[in-house]
């Protein structure tokens, strides 16, 4: 039985506006350690924007993010990455010119220490480091069962496999918080089940806290510990899946109201 701990990331009254449109309206969310949090809501509700704020791509006009005790409003994406937050994207953001192996190896960059002079010589410390990271990446590749496409340039892979590679890259960062933006978009039932199993395994084996955006209600109800519902930039529900499912606000948002 896993232990869900204290909140590891707290978003406090985040407000994000683009010109006249308010994407996020004073939203407060807490993500607790080791839990799987699902963010759901109609399109345009602000879910991806919320991830972007956590990640540092967007800077909110108001509100703060507290990550592992440190509070800040704006952060550069590479700082967020260095602090242990990894991310996947709706439209797969892989490096199309590189192979699967290289893409996942890029996830190890933060852990690589040897500077370019050692690398220029290659033999010695740089090679040792490279091989050590390669070993870890191969474990991830085994975990995701993508051995066969190791050397394939990712541009040539089908969408489902690309998503898996992107997940691999995020895992390679050994993150404490993993943000997944619609990880099952465009997949059939089998692929979704595989992805669900992977997410649960990641949470189980590595203890990674996971926040995911997802549209498939079945998936959400099955794997998440807690669900947050957004609608037009406001949070309208926050609790265990069974509660959220029967909440009148949520039903109104999704199905509309009777007139």
């Amino acid at each position, binding site marked *: 039985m896993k232990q869900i701990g204290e909140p590891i990331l707290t978003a406090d009254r985040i407000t994000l506006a683009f010109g006249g449109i308010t994407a996020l309206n004073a939203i407060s969310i807490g993500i607790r350690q080791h839990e799987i949090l699902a963010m759901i809501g109609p399109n345009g509700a602000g879910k991806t924007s919320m991830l972007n704020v956590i990640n540092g*791509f967007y800077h909110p006009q108001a509100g703060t993010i507290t990550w592992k005790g440190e509070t800040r409003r704006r952060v550069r994406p590479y700082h967020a990455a260095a602090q242990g937050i990894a991310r996947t*994207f709706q*439209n797969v*953001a892989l490096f199309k010119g590189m192979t699967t192996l290289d893409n996942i190896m890029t996830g190890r960059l933060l852990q690589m220490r040897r500077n370019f002079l050692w690398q220029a010589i290659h033999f010695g410390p740089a090679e040792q480091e490279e091989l050590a990271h390669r070993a870890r990446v191969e474990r991830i590749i085994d975990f995701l069962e993508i051995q066969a496409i190791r050397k394939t340039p990712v541009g040539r892979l089908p969408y489902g496999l690309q998503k898996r590679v992107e997940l691999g890259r995020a895992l390679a960062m050994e993150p404490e918080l993993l943000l997944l933006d619609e990880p099952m978009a465009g997949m059939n039932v089998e692929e979704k089940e595989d992805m669900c199993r992977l997410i649960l395994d990641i949470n189980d084996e590595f203890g990674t806290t996971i926040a995911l955006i997802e549209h498939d209600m079945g998936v959400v109800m099955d794997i998440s510990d807690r669900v947050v519902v957004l609608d037009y930039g406001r949070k309208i529900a926050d609790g265990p899946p069974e509660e959220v499912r029967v909440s009148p606000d949520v039903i109104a948002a999704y199905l509309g109201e009777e007139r």
Partner: protein
Amino acid sequence: MNFFVVEVLIGGLLTGVLYALVALGFVLIFKASAVFNFAQGSMCLFAALALVRLMEVMPLPLALLAAAAIMIGLAFAIERLVLRPLVNQAAIILFMATIGITFFLDGFGQSLFGSKVYTLDLGIPKNPLILFESIIPGGILVNEFDLWAAVAAGLLVAVLAVFFQRTRIGRALRAVADDHQAAQSVGIPLRHIWVIVWSVAGLVALVAGIIWGSKLGVQFSIALVALKALPVLMLGGLTSVPGAIVGGLIVGAGEKLSEVFLGPFLGGGIENWFAYVLALLFLLARPQGLFGERIIERV
């Protein structure tokens, strides 16, 4: 007030209009086919050479028509032989292809039309004029030719701006520049568009070639004027017709003023790089040029 400054300034502005004219060709092609046509300068040279040699055997109006026809023919050839085979390639490939076209045109033009320095006389008076005598004692010295050139360039720019914004073809051109495949999927004939655009750019090159050729004589250095137009593009934005004008004015004025006032401290000859550094500084403030489209990147 130092009237010498004003004189230098006006001289610079007038030169700037001519830079803008060359830059205009770049902007047209970039707006409509997202290709950075490095060969624009060579097209100016080619057009001017064609005109000068044609004028030796036929009267001016006929020579102009013939030269225009040649440029249109060139557009067809470029579309057929270079653009069509390279239709979905990366930007740098297309850019390098236009450099290949530059080399080809330079060699072709000079082997076909000869490589002497030809004088081009269209009958535009080149008298020095003194303007503003009533306001400023002694007046401002300008060359009548430069004034006529500025007027011609201004008219051309106005016509092209209207063409792009108001006409159906203009809209189609903008669609093509945005996304080749999407444009095709709504039925815009890509090839026709490209021929039209490169023809128009060719005609602009003809006008620019005429003006620069009249000023400097028709010789190889005209092709190098393109290198002066590049800072104009950086400043004004690659996708903006008014940007080409404003950029041209700023670069022209900046060049002349810097040569006169900064030159003595730095040893002279800074014209070549000053425009680039100036444009670079502007770009640091606005990375897409003054009037260029903002490059929005989403993940």
